[in-house]
């Protein structure tokens, strides 16, 4: 059963086994698993349910419709680094490029060793990954829908001899429209609102949308549920209607930004002092390349191929694309030269390098409102890694037959015409501020650790401080996994769900 804003007048009170706050990758997976185990589960979501027929291909309209802070959210500090999270049933899985990787074993080993985690092994997680892959229909796309943008990277990898692969994606019937970030207008992307949530509802689960959870109910050190306010989906203003859910276990899955804000506002679960700290992400930046041939980069799967030869060195290179107005921002300069560059849109590709950043930022609740203050100052180590990754991206572009590239790096010429000139990227004395990155896949703000002094939750997502309070989203990652994280979030949330199911 689904209740939206229009269905709730006055106060709605519910009782259940488990209340889950958030319907993103973590919340949806956790709730589904618990419902399948026979628990009565209520999910609360601040955003609205939006069906594919309501998505728009106008990128700025989509920002306002689907993204938190109208798509204007950014990490501050010595730089401004945009970071995008969705505000809709299905969370950021609705607006991502459907990229699916399992958590690499070496990263899991590192997490387990560093944070003294228990119950997390490659063998133990494998069935959880397999189930996620089955439910979300994760597969490699047909070549027909890859499009030239992806095929060129494949050619580049083959020519230069670097390992590359078609990216596994959660989709069914994708025809490569290239507008993943505005929501899939074909409904082909198997975001969690189209796979986990419908199954959850079929199992008898309850979903309440348009409700912002503001208070976690706690008595005698035990979580008892949550209360929240219904939000008008048109004005985004709070209404007088409210929801209270009493539950035997409370799961927070509001993402790496939302979860620490909720805990901070409630002054809860923070004996470690780590709620909102240790903000990690995959800092990424794109490079535009021009080919003599027509590429039509928007025609095909957005991100269907990657070069993962350097994953263990800390970065991967992925095909990317963005709407023309966003490409216009990436292209250097202004005036007629810039405009003439845009006229060659069909010859362009945009490839991006994504680093496993080690910088740690902070997320802090503001006194007013629910948008966090985010501070993130990229370290010299990460800037150096970004420099190396951009050089590799340039080499790959030239190996694919690129005519010239626009590195988009301050202190480096705005256009480079020969592969040997790519060395200028490495020779420049670059700082973090010389790049124009975005902060993808935020995580780590409620880190899991076996040591209560080093983590907010334990190996099972359970709060070290508050009984029956759990977290099941990317905020529990010890640090960035180095690959796109949605599948890892789903699998870890299922792991948390299994523990809840066994203990309540």
């Amino acid at each position, binding site marked *: 059963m689904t209740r939206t804003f229009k269905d709730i007048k006055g106060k709605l009170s519910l009782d259940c086994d488990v209340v889950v706050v958030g319907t993103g990758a973590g919340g949806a997976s956790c709730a589904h698993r618990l419902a399948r185990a026979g628990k009565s589960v209520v999910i609360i979501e601040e955003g609205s349910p939006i069906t594919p027929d309501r998505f728009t291909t106008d990128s700025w309209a989509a920002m306002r419709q689907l993204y938190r802070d109208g798509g204007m959210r950014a990490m501050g500090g010595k730089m401004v680094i945009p970071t995008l999270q969705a505000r809709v049933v299905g969370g950021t899985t609705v607006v991502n490029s459907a990229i699916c990787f399992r958590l690499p074993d070496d990263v899991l080993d590192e997490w387990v060793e560093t944070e003294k985690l228990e119950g997390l092994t490659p063998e133990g997680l494998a069935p959880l990954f397999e189930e996620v892959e089955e439910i979300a229909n994760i597969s490699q796309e047909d070549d027909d829908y890859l499009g030239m943008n992806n095929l060129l990277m494949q050619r580049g990898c083959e020519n230069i001899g670097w390992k590359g692969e078609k990216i596994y994606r959660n989709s069914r019937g994708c025809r490569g429209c290239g507008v993943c970030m505005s929501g899939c*207008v074909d409904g082909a992307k198997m975001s969690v609102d189209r796979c986990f949530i419908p199954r959850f509802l079929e199992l008898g689960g309850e979903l309440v949308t348009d409700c912002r959870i503001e208070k976690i109910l706690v008595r005698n050190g035990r979580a008892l549920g949550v209360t929240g306010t219904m939000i008008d989906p048109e004005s985004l203003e709070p209404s007088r209607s409210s929801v209270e859910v009493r539950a035997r276990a409370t799961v927070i899955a509001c993402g790496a930004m939302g979860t620490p804000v909720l805990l901070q506002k409630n002054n809860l679960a923070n004996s470690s002092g780590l709620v909102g700290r240790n903000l990690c992400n995959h800092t990424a930046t794109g490079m535009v390349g021009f080919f003599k041939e027509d590429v039509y980069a928007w025609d095909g799967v957005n991100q269907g191929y990657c070069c993962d030869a350097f994953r263990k060195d800390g970065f991967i290179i992925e095909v990317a694309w963005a709407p023309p107005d966003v490409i216009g921002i990436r292209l250097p300069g202004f005036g007629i030269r810039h405009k003439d560059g845009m006229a060659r849109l069909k010859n362009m590709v945009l490839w991006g390098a994504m680093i496993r950043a080690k910088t740690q930022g902070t997320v802090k609740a503001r006194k007013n409102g629910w948008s966090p203050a985010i501070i993130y100052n990229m370290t010299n180590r990460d800037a150096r890694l970004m420099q190396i990754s951009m050089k590799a991206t340039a080499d790959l572009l030239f190996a694919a037959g690129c005519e010239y590239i626009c590195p988009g790096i301050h202190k480096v010429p705005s256009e480079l015409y020969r592969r040997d000139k790519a060395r200028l990227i490495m020779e420049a004395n670059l700082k973090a501020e010389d790049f124009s990155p975005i902060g993808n896949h935020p995580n780590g703000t409620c880190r899991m650790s076996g040591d209560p002094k080093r983590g907010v939750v334990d190996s099972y997502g359970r709060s070290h401080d508050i009984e029956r309070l759990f977290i099941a989203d990317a905020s529990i990652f010890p640090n960035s996994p180095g690959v796109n994280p949605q599948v890892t979030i789903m699998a870890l949330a299922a792991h948390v769900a299994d523990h809840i199911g066994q203990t309540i």
Partner: protein
Amino acid sequence: MSRAWEYAADVTLPGGHPAVGPRVGKIIEQLAGRLIPAGGLIDVSVEETDAYKAVARYLRDLDSGSRLGIKALLLAFDLAPFLFIQRFSRFTRLSPQEQELYLHDWSDSRLYYRRMVVVLLKTIIGLGFYNDPLVLEKMDFHLKCEEAGS
């Protein structure tokens, strides 16, 4: 009267005031003239597109603090040529060549936040232009999902 103000007069804030007033409108118009001048391989001018309205809608949809911040930034940008290129004039009264010089001074600055101002201005002015059907047609940009029969 600025064309930006005129074109976007019907985009109003909740109180009924236009999202872009005459002075800010003048700055936006002059900026558009330098950032996306008429001519070139895309022979469409800003005035032929929805770009000014898009700027107004963008400002309208911001929270009041951010809107005020961007307008203040535009006004400061207009007043600052003396500080950076030693011209005793507003940006809006400079010659096109001097305006270009001034913009280059910002975009090539050693200071990160000055460079980011140009990125922001490119974003605001470009979002409507490079999303306009006329311009998309010139760029041969057609989305498969928007084709007839889809």
